[in-house]
């Protein structure tokens, strides 16, 4: 095995993001092809430049990436559909990145897209008896993890609500987000209880949408000044003994893990990139439910366990804070088209690192980190740098 940082540098040359929301009249491949066209234009490339494609989605049936690509070009390239729940988009990016780093290809497309089933997210990532028993990820299992987290840290329901308020405030400046209206602390606290202690406005909405990135080697870039480097792209799966609510797994009482799945993905990303939490200027966190943004920040190493809520209260994670988190509104504002979410985060990081984020632009962002996780379980961490 080589170290990935001994391989060649890999860049995001172009990004493409569709409007996210509910679009009854459009099919998944409509979103997907639109994101591809946009990413190609942004990269100043044509379809014939693309040598391979990785397409992430969850609910779209067979050959879904091909369906989107069929609207753009038919050039015989390898197209591989990737499914990794809420990290499907980040998994596509990781494969594209590895292909370019290893010099197997020079220019690769990473696509994530979804037309979501309506209502809460159905999941088959459970044993049939677990599903029949009501042990379901959205939102029961997250609720259980939140109960434990609140007991261990003293985090309150109001702390949770503050995450929603921050993210919806950011989302109000994101023209691609499903929800572009801020909410107040009172709105959140008054929303209906879904599964104690999680209320409706603690849980991200769904959405349809797509996001794409053209990934390439340095010599293929049309514009070096707008390019963003992939410093790390990591995905991990379940670690023995780790309690993984998204997968319906209770932690082992006898053999708790030394390093959990999320911490492992962060460690690997810091190791390969050479950056540490102290080097990160901006974060796209995983707020599928708002408490997971808080414990995510802790497990990613930005603060100690139980400290995230206090830092949030102090404004550290605001747009103008020391470490802005979910500058595009996060899943809470964008909505959550499962296969697209990971690459949606990448689009925001690239936009911020390029200084092209308009009203929601943060100051001096040079290194950004995105984190997603989901059923399986999996955890993905990407680090980008300008």
């Amino acid at each position, binding site marked *: 095995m080589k170290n990935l940082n001994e391989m060649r540098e890999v860049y995001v040359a172009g990004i493409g993001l569709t409007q996210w929301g509910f679009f009854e009249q459009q099919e998944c491949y409509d979103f997907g092809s639109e994101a591809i066209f946009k990413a190609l234009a942004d990269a100043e490339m044509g379809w014939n430049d693309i040598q391979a494609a990785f397409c992430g989605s969850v609910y779209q049936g067979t050959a879904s990436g091909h369906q989107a690509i069929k609207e753009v070009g038919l050039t015989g390239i390898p197209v591989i559909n990737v499914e990794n729940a809420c990290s499907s988009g980040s998994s596509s990016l990781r494969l594209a990145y590895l292909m370019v780093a290893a010099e197997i290809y020079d220019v690769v497309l990473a696509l994530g897209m979804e037309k979501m*089933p309506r*209502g*809460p*997210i*159905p*999941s*088959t990532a459970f044993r*049939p*008896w*677990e*599903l*029949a*028993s*009501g*042990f*379901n990820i*959205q*939102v*029961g299992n997250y*609720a*259980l993890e939140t*109960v*434990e987290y609140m*007991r261990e840290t003293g985090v309150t329901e109001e702390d949770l609500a503050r995450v929603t308020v921050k993210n919806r405030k950011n989302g109000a400046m994101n023209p691609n987000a499903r929800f572009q209206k801020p909410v107040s602390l009172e709105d959140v606290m008054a929303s*209906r*209880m*879904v*599964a*104690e*202690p*999680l209320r409706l406005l603690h849980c991200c909405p769904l959405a349809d949408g797509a996001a794409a990135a053209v990934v390439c080697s340095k010599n293929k870039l049309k514009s070096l000044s707008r390019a963003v480097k992939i410093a790390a792209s990591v995905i991990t799966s379940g670690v*023995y*003994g780790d*309690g993984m609510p998204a997968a*319906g797994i*209770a*932690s*082992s*009482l*006898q*053999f708790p893990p030394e390093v959990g799945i999320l911490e492992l993905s962060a460690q690997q990303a810091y190791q390969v990139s050479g950056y540490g939490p102290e080097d990160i200027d901006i974060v796209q966190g995983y707020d599928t439910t708002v408490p997971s943004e808080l414990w995510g920040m802790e497990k990613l190493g930005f603060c100690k366990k139980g400290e995230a809520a206090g830092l949030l209260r102090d404004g550290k994670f605001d747009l103008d804070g020391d470490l802005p988190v979910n500058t595009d509104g996060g899943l809470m504002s964008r909505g959550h088209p499962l296969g697209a979410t990971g690459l949606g985060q990448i689009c925001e990081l690239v936009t911020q690192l390029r200084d092209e984020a308009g009203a929601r632009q943060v100051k001096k962002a040079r290194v950004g980190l995105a984190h997603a996780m989901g059923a399986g379980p999996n955890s993905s961490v990407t680090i980008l740098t300008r």
Partner: protein
Amino acid sequence: MGESNQQQVPLKEGFWTSGTPDGGPRLIGSRCTNCGEVYFPKKPKGWCLHCQQQTLEEILLSPRGRISAVTVVRQPPAGGFYHGPVPYAYGLVDLSDGLRLVSQITADDLDSIPVGGEAELVIKPLYQDPEGREIMTFMFTPVA
């Protein structure tokens, strides 16, 4: 198994033993003879995920445990897989065998299930299937 005249069918075979005059029902799990890890449900291949060996034996789990977390789910889970009542409570139950498991928690008042409190295994109907049979499952219920 119960006082009703309806046919009762377990949600899944092999999850528990029926009660006897000497005691109530027990969950059937696996225990590793090498490392001592305990699993529920029983792992049919006998493979210990923790120590990576074929070293599991079947055991009956303790019918009592401690509720370490609980939530009350107030909307039906997505996907159409769940046919039981809503709202319902479920949580994490720590057994003295050294195992934490996920289980529905049944109680007269779902809103006052005591976290940290003792709970006991019961086998209860979860729902009635289209043929009118009662589908039975394991749950834990708080004890005083």
